[in-house]
């Protein structure tokens, strides 16, 4: 009976999860293609150091240590999770204990110690967010759902650890009563001490029930997390790895070149033989005003963001009270990608670019138009405030680049809309007319006569 329920629930969760992760994948693909297949060795090295090794987290020791507790507990608990899966499907009990022997004791004890540390870390994090109110964790862009999301994850963590200790604690006591059904696990680091302390006077039936409650609690939090992650900031536990892998390797100070414009200017200056001139072609759009103009990597960045705010805490514009927050840029991109993805999968033709065109059979990214853009999420004042100082890029522990989308939005504003800050107009004019950022009547080399 339990087996059947287990398979049914896990199967359903697996199915829902597959559809949700597929949606995330599809939303990431709303962005433009960008080939990132070079320098595989360096990329794997980054994954090892930055994602697995948490290298960039350790620029800030206190949160890094507590985060490490939860992270390592998460990694090791996978062993127990595999056992739960096997036990659940085949109706056995602690499958690994029979053939791992004393090594099993070591494994489970390690998980218990790590879980204990993770428990402490969870309380520390709840404290930092809700009582200590660390500035970057209480900024305005976190009001509402993001704040709830963060606390829900931490609560889930509490339940998860409670489940493990309940299950193991009751088990340890049961081993001494009914060794036939509860094979010896050896002396466990936490439960062999806590179990007898709490559960010694319990009836056998109650103990068996408590052990099952712990087991199912642990399992349901894990299954809950699997379906919850795609709508949560906590998705970073998976996406951090591919995100680090695909992160920019070239010089930080190199902005992406725009070959279309380069070639046009080249032929304009007579520097190269005339390229094919499609004068009757529609003026192309430059830069990005929506997720379609960003690259898939920018959207992957957005889905990877766990809203820790290290970027905004070091952003010179943000710390001096401007509206720009690199974290909010990433959150907005994700929200917009989700909105577009939702509308496209609704199939509602009111989102089609040409509404009376019956030729459109399926909504896709290329025929989509809901009358909104990323600029409905991100204001001009935000993108105008960026100094391109790269502090946000440097700060991100999972190698998100909030600067790239900001610059793509600027490009759209200037090149496609011919808009932008009025202050920049004289600068552009001076550059065009005299090749200098200022319009100055003097000769450029005049200073050398005053040496």
């Amino acid at each position: 009976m339990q087996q059947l329920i287990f398979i049914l629930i896990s199967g359903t969760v697996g199915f829902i999860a597959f559809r949700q992760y597929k949606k995330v994948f599809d939303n990431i693909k709303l962005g433009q293609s960008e080939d990132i297949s070079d320098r595989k060795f360096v990329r794997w090295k980054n994954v090892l150091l930055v994602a697995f090794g948490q290298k960039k987290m350790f620029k800030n020791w206190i949160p890094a240590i507590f985060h490490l507790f939860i992270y390592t507990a998460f990694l090791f608990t996978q062993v127990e999770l595999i056992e739960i899966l096997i036990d659940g499907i085949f109706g056995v009990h602690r499958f690994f204990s029979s053939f791992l022997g004393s090594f099993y004791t070591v494994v489970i004890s390690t998980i218990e110690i790590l879980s204990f540390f993770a428990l402490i870390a969870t309380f520390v994090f709840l404290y930092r967010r809700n009582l200590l109110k660390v500035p970057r964790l209480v900024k305005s862009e976190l009001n509402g759902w993001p704040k709830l999301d963060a606390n829900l994850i931490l609560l889930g963590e509490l339940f998860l650890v409670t489940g493990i200790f309940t299950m193991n604690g009751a088990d340890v006591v049961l081993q001494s009563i009914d060794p036939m059904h509860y094979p010896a696990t050896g002396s466990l680091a936490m439960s062999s001490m806590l179990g007898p302390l709490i559960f010694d006077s319990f009836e056998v039936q109650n103990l068996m029930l408590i052990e099952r409650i712990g087991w199912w609690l642990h399992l349901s939090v894990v299954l809950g997390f699997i379906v919850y992650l795609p709508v949560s900031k906590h998705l970073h536990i998976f996406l951090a790895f591919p995100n680090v892998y695909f992160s920019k390797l070239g010089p930080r100070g190199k902005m992406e070149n725009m070959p279309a414009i380069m070639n046009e200017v080249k032929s304009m200056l007579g520097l190269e033989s005339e390229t094919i001139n499609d004068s009757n072609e529609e003026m192309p759009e430059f830069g990005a005003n929506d997720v379609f103009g960003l690259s898939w990597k920018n959207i992957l960045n957005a889905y990877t963001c766990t809203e820790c705010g290290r970027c905004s805490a070091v952003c010179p514009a943000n710390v001096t009270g401007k509206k720009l927050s690199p974290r909010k840029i990433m959150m907005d991109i994700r929200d917009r990608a989700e909105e577009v993805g939702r509308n496209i999968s609704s199939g509602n033709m009111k989102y089609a670019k040409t509404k009376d065109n019956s030729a459109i059979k399926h909504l896709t990214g290329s025929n989509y138009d809901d009358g909104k853009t990323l600029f409905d999420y991100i204001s001009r004042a935000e993108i105008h405030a960026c100094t391109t100082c790269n502090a946000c890029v440097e700060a991100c522990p999972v190698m998100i680049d909030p600067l790239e989308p900001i610059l793509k939005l600027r490009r759209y504003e200037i090149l496609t809309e011919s808009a932008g800050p009025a202050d920049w107009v004289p600068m552009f004019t001076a550059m065009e007319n005299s090749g200098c950022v200022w319009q100055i009547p003097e000769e450029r080399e005049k200073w050398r006569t005053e040496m």
Partner: protein
Amino acid sequence: MKIKTMAEVSSEDIHVEILFWVGCAGSFDARAQRVTKAFSKLLQKAGISFAILGNEEMCSGDPARRAGNEFIFQMLALQNINTLNMYGVKKIVTACPHCFNTLKNEYPELGGNYEVVHHTQFLQELLNSGKLKVQGGAFKGKKITYHDSCYLGRINNEYEAPRSLLNALDVDLSEMKRSKANGLCCGAGGAQMFKEDEAGNKKINIERAEDVINTGAQIVSANCPFCITMLTDGMKAKDKEDNVMIMDISEMILQDIQ
């Protein structure tokens, strides 16, 4: 000794090792001109054969590109590359980290391949090779702080060359709480220099001026003409322009040598 342009040296058939890229600020801004002249004197003292582009030089295009105006960037960059390639330039030194970054990292994809060094790196080379010798007197033991420009520091990962110069001057270097990779921007990058600040509760250069003041240093050394402008304005806003001097490292070295 007169500084020559590439046009002049090539007509006289003289070969020069180095092109000194002066940049818009270095050419026109009164304060940055002083840095340009100081660095030129150091080059002359070290016996480096160099020339400038003079009137043939144009803005590197950095502020246009970062503002989003790729057309103007390409116009300027391609013309500059055309000029540089025409003269067969191999090595460029510049006192502006924005020009440095664009020439070094962005020109290659447009067809401009040169060895580009920042003037603090070049001065380090000159000191190391003994072509320049500091006395270590003028600033010895003085409490000095150093402001990392974003485009030399965090973006091009050069934190040591300028600091090694300060060490050579025997200064008492007092770092700001935000320095090196964590250095705070002066507020000028990304074409902010050429526009008013967005609405907020403080100007970025004032925030940075406060970092400087908190070190108690008498001098803040910098490596970028825009940082120098921003820090100067910041000090004025804090009424500290008479207490804290803002100097380019090349000016300090020249003062030490003279």
